[in-house]
């Protein structure tokens, strides 16, 4: 039984990071009908931003929080570690928002009126650009991620066969992902920017007739989606403590599958699809077939496209002629 709960915990933590990436896919698709294949690379850049921030400023940030929070600088302080992690995530989010801004402005906006296939090809191009310039700049070998939580003890429950281990990092990742999703939900459904985003995704022309600056709303959508991917990048870097410039490609595709599973364009669907995928992967690797873990997302993708192409929560839209 403990085994089962262990897989649930692993799956939720993994699903949370998938969700942060999937949200960016689904939001951009909702507003531009574009699968932004460069999104996985934004996530990679987020991980590297976190890596370099921690490498060069990590110790100082920990020291700062230890001082502010009146705890010893002996690195054992949970509070200082958590605050440092949050700070690094925020720095990465801001950086990725800027990346998203420039990608949209330089690569996608000039093609606003072009056929959609041109946008798609451009997205693949941007993705390759980041993968290979990443290898040029960061080097192609995997780099270890500093472990902020190394001195924190895991919580254990039960013993022997019923041993359940909860890693504080997993709890942190899950809690942060949920918090960010709740903030996003608030922005989309309860602010004017969110209303405008929904209006633009409904119809660009109509939105502009209401005085809504559609280009600015599209840019904002890219920035929000990219910042979530940045947060995911840092948290995945901390969890699998190695990062490399091609790390975005597979999780990016998996998150895309999760978004399609939930119904692309649907924000709640992206979260649902991601948790389903995260849990399914955890169970599959736990109960005997870890080799097939990476194939699962694509099997789900094929299945959902055959059975319900609009996704679990998606609405079927007839193509306008």
């Amino acid at each position, binding site marked *: 039984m403990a085994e089962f709960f262990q897989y649930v915990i692993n799956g939720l933590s993994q699903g949370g990071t998938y969700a942060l990436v999937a949200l960016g896919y689904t939001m951009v698709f909702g507003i531009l009908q574009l699968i932004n294949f460069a999104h996985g690379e934004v996530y990679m850049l987020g991980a590297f931003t976190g890596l370099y921030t921690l490498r060069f400023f990590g110790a100082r940030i920990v020291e700062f929080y230890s001082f502010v929070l009146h705890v010893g600088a002996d690195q054992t302080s949970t509070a200082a570690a958590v605050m440092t992690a949050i700070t690094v995530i925020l720095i990465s989010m801001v950086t990725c928002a800027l990346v998203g801004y420039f990608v949209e402005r330089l690569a996608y906006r000039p093609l606003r009126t072009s056929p959609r296939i041109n946008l798609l090809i451009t997205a693949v191009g941007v993705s390759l650009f980041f993968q290979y310039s990443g290898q040029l700049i960061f080097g192609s070998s995997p780099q270890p991620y500093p472990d902020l939580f190394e001195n924190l003890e895991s919580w254990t429950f039960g013993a022997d066969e019923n041993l359940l281990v909860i890693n504080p990092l997993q709890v942190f990742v899950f809690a942060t992902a949920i918090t960010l999703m709740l903030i996003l939900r608030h922005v989309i459904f309860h602010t004017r920017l969110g209303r*405008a985003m929904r209006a633009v995704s409904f119809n660009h022309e109509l939105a502009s007739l*209401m005085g809504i600056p559609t280009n600015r709303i599209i840019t904002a959508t890219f920035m929000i989606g990219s910042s979530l991917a940045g947060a995911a990048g840092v948290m995945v870097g901390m969890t699998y403590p190695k990062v490399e410039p091609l790390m975005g490609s597979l999780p990016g595709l998996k998150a895309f599958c999760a978004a399609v599973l939930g119904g692309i364009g649907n924000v709640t669907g992206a979260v649902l699809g991601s948790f389903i995928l995260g849990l399914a992967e955890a169970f599959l690797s736990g109960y005997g077939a870890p080799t097939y873990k990476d194939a699962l997302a694509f099997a789900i993708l094929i299945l959902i496209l055959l059975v319900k192409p609009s996704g679990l929560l998606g609405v079927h839209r007839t193509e306008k002629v």
Partner: protein
Amino acid sequence: MTPVKNEIVLSLKDVSVFYGIIQGLHNVSFDVHKGDIVTLVGANGAGKSTTLRAISGLVKPKTGQINFKGQNIVGVPAHEIVSRGLCQAPEGRGIFLNLSVAENMDLGAWAAPDKEAYQANMDQGFQLFPRLKERRNQLAGTLSGGEQQMLAIARALMSQPEVLLLDEPSLGLAPQIIEKIFEIIMDINKSGVTILLVEQNALQALQIAHHGIVFETGVIKTQGIAADLLRSDEIRKAYLGD
């Protein structure tokens, strides 16, 4: 109708619009005086909606000028034109079906110059259309056709327009509802808003308008005082089905 006209608030000079190689408008020129209801009538595809799209900045005329309050607005982005005081309630009602009634109205106020008047405008919209108030939290997609048209007008009014463009507000509505919509258009006009009304329902439109412009295949066939057009035999035969 009034012997002395107010100043010209909107004027088109030799406007030509092309869709690819097909010309949609040929040298269209007309003036809209402040406080008037001006109606563009004519058959389907005569260029009425294209004219509104050009004014709103959705299509860019190849030649000609569109002057709004003395400034040429050709090439000004659509959202910017709204904030200058010219708003369109588009054809097919064009409301955000995935947003609630109140959210639609709220977005209408995006470009409103006077943010203080927000609540007053909202109240005024609900006063004009009490049905919308009852349904303020409902998704706009669940409204009936007539209610959607009311929402389109109420939302456009949230931007505090000086000139309101209405594209086929009677399209697909039952006769009693059309009558109600036309009454409200007159009320809005009396409150000081200049109205440019595109209608296929030429008879009804000319009855409430001061000035009428008759379109045929992308050119202005004739224009004049609406009452005169209604009396003209030629017009009656060609456009009013007599």
